[in-house]
């Protein structure tokens, strides 16, 4: 039975940051300069926006002010004393003096107070060199201390989680970390403890700060009180080279500042991109760069000789790969060749591989998804939402897996929309998850039964929606133990609502780029079908497949049947990633010829005949497309490992060996070709991508409001502990960037100015609106001349209802953030965080089994049987069992039958 709670209205909080409806502006005079501001906006922000930097530690523009550090005291004429600028809302006619002598004296005093108990161990502090306490002391503080007493002492750093250490001697009690944990992450596992001079950040002794977002506290800590184990002692800030990039761990595409030292990646900082991640990263994204330097990386190609994989030269390996693929194509027809994967590369990788597969191999058996996503026509054909749409949505409907586990920073955005912005959340799922407690309406269905409640969802949403704003449906694959049919059936019903937009919750880093660029059956680059775009692409490419091909499940099944005889695996591992391991394993064992393109030797590539090692994120430039369809640049920060090369270049080399010269020598050339031939990408060329500060949402002419063009040239750095603005990192023209040093330096066209620490923030000027209009109009014209983009006409049948017998539990398989995937398992800091296999059942079902919590049981499905620990879990309803996918060891993939409408299991005790 569906269950529902009405949770009452989520409280709209006051909107002190002034981002609400514009009800006129006020005039404020700051240091003699009259400026316009929105009423109620915090004085410190208004001053900053107008070039007056008021020193601060506790204030962070993404969190509510607390006025704790007292560093931002200013004089406001007519007000008693020295109010802190961070808690003073501006009002019309306000006259502010930030430079008066008594203001300076008070600031000087605060710095002296902060320093009396500060350890001054700067030489061994990670923050040293990018520390606002250092910088602001230099700019505003006293030269020496008059404190002659003993300083406060605490045990030096204590771990508060697996990745974060706390040094309480360095802490200046600003509360940024505790507020982040409570306000932003919703994980109040750290708090202030004790009081007065002993006040300190605490965790509960046996409950560490196991937040998926803990790394953000390290980034925003204004001193070296919180340090991250992966970065600790790895570099000095002034040795770091930085470039702006996008995280590709999941498909949110968080903007980041990627930093390296001595050609090694050492840190990823969140960049404050308003439409994407608002400065935050999840820990998997933040620390996952470690996998790039894994000792298990492949350095050289390998070919199978005498039954074993042995290292080979690139020419040997490429020749062998080309020969194997040619033979299959020529001997058994294009339908005997298939390609799986490609959702983890760049757009350029996806495009060149799609072109190679579809025009050279002429096969349409191509799928970037591995049986764990949604039908491509749904993702490509539904009206799309952007992430910022969540902020002003009339309602957000969750028809997706647990966002906290799969798309963590999107989880933060939706949580904020519900908690802070009052957007009603409708939670449709088979069990409770990370957002359930923020939901206004909760609708529960049996696993595989989302279609059964579709009318109820539509009615509830219709009742709920009042006023403006789109209905945003977050649409994904809620469980890998069932096909997407029921979810799609429910989505089809929602598609009939007015102004409904869909936000895809497919998770792999560039799965949307891969789908957009044709790595999926039946489609060609630019969101056109093979049918509609065939002629266009035959012109562009010379050839396209004759007919639509198979998806991943079909390809693997066909391989088992012997029809697919050659398989290209592109940065994927079906044996681990495909929900049905029996099918995947048999397929790779049956296929005559496998080319594995990837960075690691996997369960799949061990069966390969040729292994071609690739460069990873951070080692190659290009673009990626996030779940909104936003194309974002990724940067190369270090040299590719060993002899590895980017995937797209490998495709070009293979094409050449099969007689096709793509004539693509650089990433820019690939981007320009995509912009030319792919209808959805019209106008999105290399030059534009370089200037689009927040990326480009596809198709560009329909999202011109999302386009912000930098005029180019000027680049300025920010301090790492403050929000880092997009487009402010100087790396393009070879200047070593100094994000994090706190030194603000303008470089680029014309002049170079060095100013006082943190004193000025001048963003690169944005291009005028006319230029944006011209660019998008040209894109509209180009798109108009191209084949029509695909639109999905929702027409689905309700999947059949399958009865569950009383002794069985119906399986739900989702994901945990930390799993056995390569980013996780090859990053030393993340690998230990994978929770491991665990079957979760309702306490009542648990009691029926009769084992201790965590005791091992045998789990039997129609497909197979595995031994797993069993735990009671109140979030899982009776009759349902939950498993995390792809944890180390045997598990969900050994139980799931991909062809079954649902998967039921039995739990048996082990005979001792």
């Amino acid at each position: 039975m569906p269950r529902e709670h009405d949770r009452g209205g989520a409280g709209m909080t006051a909107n002190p940051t002034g981002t609400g409806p514009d009800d006129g502006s006020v005039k404020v005079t700051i240091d003699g300069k009259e400026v316009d501001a929105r009423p109620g906006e915090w004085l410190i922000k208004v001053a900053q926006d107008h070039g007056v930097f008021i020193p601060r530690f506790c204030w962070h523009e993404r969190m509510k002010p607390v006025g704790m550090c007292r560093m931002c005291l200013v004089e406001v004429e007519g007000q008693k004393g020295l109010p802190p600028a961070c808690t003073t809302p501006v009002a019309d006619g306000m006259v502010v003096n930030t430079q008066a002598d008594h203001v300076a004296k008070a600031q000087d005093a605060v710095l002296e107070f902060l320093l009396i108990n500060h350890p001054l161990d700067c030489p061994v502090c990670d923050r040293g060199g990018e520390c606002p306490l250092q910088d602001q002391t230099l700019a505003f503080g006293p030269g020496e201390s008059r404190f002659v007493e003993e300083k406060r002492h605490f045990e030096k750093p204590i771990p508060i989680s697996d990745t974060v250490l706390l040094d309480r001697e360095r802490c200046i009690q600003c509360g940024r970390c505790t507020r982040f944990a409570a306000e932003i992450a919703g994980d109040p596992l750290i708090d202030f403890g004790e009081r007065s001079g002993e006040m300190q950040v605490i965790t509960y002794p046996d409950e560490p700060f196991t937040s998926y977002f803990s790394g953000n506290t390290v980034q925003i800590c204004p001193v070296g009180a919180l340090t991250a184990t992966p970065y600790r002692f790895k570099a000095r800030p002034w040795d770091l080279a930085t470039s702006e990039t996008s995280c590709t761990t999941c498909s949110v595409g968080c903007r980041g500042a990627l930093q390296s030292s001595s050609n090694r990646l050492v840190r990823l900082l969140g960049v404050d991109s308003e439409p994407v991640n608002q400065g935050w990263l999840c820990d998997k994204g933040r620390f996952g760069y470690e996998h790039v330097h894994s000792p298990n990386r492949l350095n050289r190609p390998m070919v199978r000789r005498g039954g074993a994989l042995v290292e080979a030269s690139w020419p040997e390996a490429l020749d062998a790969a080309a020969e194997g693929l040619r033979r299959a194509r020529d001997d058994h027809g294009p339908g005997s060749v298939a390609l799986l994967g490609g959702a983890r590369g760049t757009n350029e990788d996806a495009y060149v591989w799609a072109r190679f597969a579809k025009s050279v191999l002429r096969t349409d058996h191509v799928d970037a998804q591995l049986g764990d996503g949604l039908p491509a026509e749904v993702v490509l054909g539904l009206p799309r939402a952007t992430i910022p749409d969540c902020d002003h949505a009339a309602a957000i409907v969750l028809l997706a897996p647990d966002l906290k586990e799969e798309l963590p920073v999107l989880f933060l955005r939706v949580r904020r929309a519900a908690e802070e912005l009052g957007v009603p959340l409708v939670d449709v799922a088979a069990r409770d998850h990370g957002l359930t407690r923020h939901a206004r309406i909760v609708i529960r269905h049996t696993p595989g039964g989302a279609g059964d409640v579709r009318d109820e969802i539509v009615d509830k949403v219709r009742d709920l929606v009042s006023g403006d704003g789109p209905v945003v449906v977050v649409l994904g694959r809620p469980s890998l133990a069932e096909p997407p049919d029921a979810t799609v059936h429910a989505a089809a019903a929602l598609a009939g609502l007015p102004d409904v937009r869909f936000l895809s919750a497919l998770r792999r880093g560039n799965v949307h780029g891969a789908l957009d660029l044709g790595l999926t059956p039946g489609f060609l680059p630019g969101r056109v079908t093979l049918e509609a775009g065939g002629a266009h692409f035959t012109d562009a490419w010379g050839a396209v497949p004759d007919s639509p091909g198979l998806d991943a499940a079909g390809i693997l099944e066909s391989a088992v049947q012997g029809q697919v005889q050659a398989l290209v695996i592109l940065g994927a591992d079906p044996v681990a990633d495909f929900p049905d391991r029996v099918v995947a394993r048999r397929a790779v064992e049956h296929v005559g010829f496998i080319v594995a393109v990837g960075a690691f030797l996997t369960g799949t590539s061990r069966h390969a005949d040729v292994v071609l090692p690739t460069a990873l994120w951070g080692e190659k430039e290009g673009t990626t497309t996030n779940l909104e369809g936003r194309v974002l640049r990724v940067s190369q920060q270090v040299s590719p490992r060993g002899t590895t090369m980017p995937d797209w270049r490998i495709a070009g080399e293979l094409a050449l060996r099969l007689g096709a010269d793509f004539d693509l020598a650089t990433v820019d050339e690939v981007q320009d070709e995509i912009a030319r031939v792919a209808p959805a990408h019209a106008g999105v060329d290399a030059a534009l991508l370089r200037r689009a500060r927040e990326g480009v949402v596809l198709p560009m002419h329909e999202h011109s409001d999302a386009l912000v063009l930098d005029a180019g040239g000027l680049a300025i750095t920010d301090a790492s502990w403050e929000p880092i603005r997009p487009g402010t990192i100087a790396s393009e023209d070879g200047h070593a960037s100094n994000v994090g040093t706190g030194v603000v330096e303008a470089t680029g066209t014309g002049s170079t100015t060095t100013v006082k620490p943190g004193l000025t923030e001048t963003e690169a000027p944005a291009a005028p609106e006319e230029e944006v209009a011209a660019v998008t109009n040209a894109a509209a014209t180009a798109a108009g001349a191209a084949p029509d983009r695909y639109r999905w006409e929702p027409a689905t049948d309700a999947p059949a209802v399958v009865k569950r017998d009383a002794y069985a539990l119906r399986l739900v398989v989702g994901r945990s953030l930390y799993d056995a995937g390569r980013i996780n398992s090859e990053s030393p800091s993340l690998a230990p965080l994978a929770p491991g296999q665990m079957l979760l059942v309702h306490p009542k079902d648990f009691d029926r089994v009769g084992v201790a919590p965590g005791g091992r049981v045998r789990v039997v499905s129609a497909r197979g049987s595995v031994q797993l620990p069993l735990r009671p879990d109140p979030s899982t309803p009776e009759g349902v069992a939950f498993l995390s996918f792809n944890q180390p060891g045997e598990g969900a993939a050994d139980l799931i039958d991909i062809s079954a409408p649902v998967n039921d299991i039995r739990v048996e005790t082990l005979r001792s």
Partner: protein
Amino acid sequence: MTFTPTNRAKATEIVGRYPRPKSAILPLAHLAQDQDGWLTGDAMKEIAELVGVTPAEVLGTCSFYTMLKREPVGRLVVSVCTNVSCLVTGGPDVLAHLDARYADDDDVYVEEVECLAACGGAPALQVNYEFHENVTPESAEGVVEQYKAGELEPRTVSGTAATEGSSPASERPPAGYPGPQRASEEDGPETRLITKRLHARPDDSWTIEAALATGAYDGLRTALTMTPAAIGQEQVKASGLRGRGGAGFPAATKWSFLPEGSHPRYLVVNDDEGEPSTFKDRMLTERDPHQLIEGIVIAAFAIEAHLAFIYVRGEFALGYERLEQAVEDAYAQGFLGENILGSGFDLAVVIHRGAGAYICGEETALLESLEGERGMPRIRPPFPAIEGLYAKPTVVNNVETLSTLPHIIAMGGAKYAELGVGKSTGTRIFSLSGHVNRPGNYEVELGTTFRELIEAPDLGGGVPNGREVKFLIPGGASSQWLTGDHLDVPLDMDVVQQEYGVMLGSGAVMVFDDTTNPALVAWRLAKFFAHESCGKCTPCREGTGWIEKVLYRISHGLGRPEDLDLLVDVGDGISPGVVNAPFTQTTICPLGPSAVSAIASLDKYFRDEVIAMCRVSTTAGVPA
């Protein structure tokens, strides 16, 4: 240990008292201590589960409060006050003696504590929050031994009476304020309104019977015939009543800030008396709880609140007990609950016990504490009248302020305003302590002089041993000082502030004779503020600790001649300009600048003495 089934049920009931479950953290922590003898980790986890927060948040809250013991403390917690009134009457000797005597006794946990509001009976201590006053090292040991021997039945380590309804202290004569041994039928130089009943019925003034026999709730009956506006904006306004907690803000004006038509709204009673040398609210709570409840109902009716919270200082175990009984009796008699005295007005009262934090006397810190948070003051605005408890409009009033209301209603606001002087209308209870012959609480008309209060035979009775007044601290530890030259200054809130830069504050008057080392008093006050700083604002958190360290050196023979100037400059970073009340401040609340008052006073009146002291110590080079 987890809660027993009985306590688990009680805990659930406690959670249900509050609009938000997190508010129950302190009461549940007390309950856990009652059960286990200290606050165990298991208990904090269970509390977290009961109120729906993380264990880290429970620990964050609990570790703010000194009464919550996070390690075993034995059976008896002996809390010895050494704050200034006890400092000059032998408190440190008592502490040293007990400390040494019980150093190896796992049963007895001796701790130094801040002012216990027993300064009239200084030096004072508590054993499991039972007061014992006017102790000597020997008598203090005797008391502890009596508990150990079972001759006295101790409360729990959280101060709950061991046998329900029985309180050991109620059987013994209280001391330190006009109790039975000093109750006098005659008002003498006093003008007794709010202290009338406790003098008239010294043995049972707190009971419902005694209260009803002496006119309790008559004021309420009258009030309920009036309109809310007539009470607030006519009678109370006309009375000129100003808050008795310390700030002296006009009560009717405070009420008038409530936004019209915004409900629910709350009345919160500030019974968290902790200002050193102030002990009037403790007396009013222990000795006349019905007068307070009557005042609460009148105020709630006037501001149209239907839920009132009494935040009682955690250390007031007896006061809490008597308030609970009184509230129960008031419900039974129809003075609380639904349709009070047939008026159609409903009021529920929740008594909430603090757990040891001076700062919770600051109204916004009190609200935080009542919400189950760490008692850290809030940024204002918004003021509590707009966004107070649970972000709802809230009035916070002091115990004495509310206890005055029945009398204002009974005699009429205008009549009340005839008492007192200028804008300081009516009477106030002054808590007199230190070097006086008759320390205690005296209710006098405002406008009386310090000399009269200190020297009148029926009031302070003069300085012992024929000594002179060297200096006095009016208004509690936060105020700047006056000297023996200021004895003829009137007790007028505005005059003392405008002309002398001091304040009447909470009504405490501490007297120090000419043998007193002012630097030592200043150090002890600094130690108090450093201990009680909530830690939120940098200048206070760091500055109070720094001041304490420097004053320790000065007062213990390690001072440097330049230290006084250093102190003044450090003080300037907390309270720019340092000089006079009302404070300037770089902090959110006035605690920080309060810590600077003593420095300013040393500099103003005892500069030469302090510098001379430092010269000696610099030459001597060894601690005294």
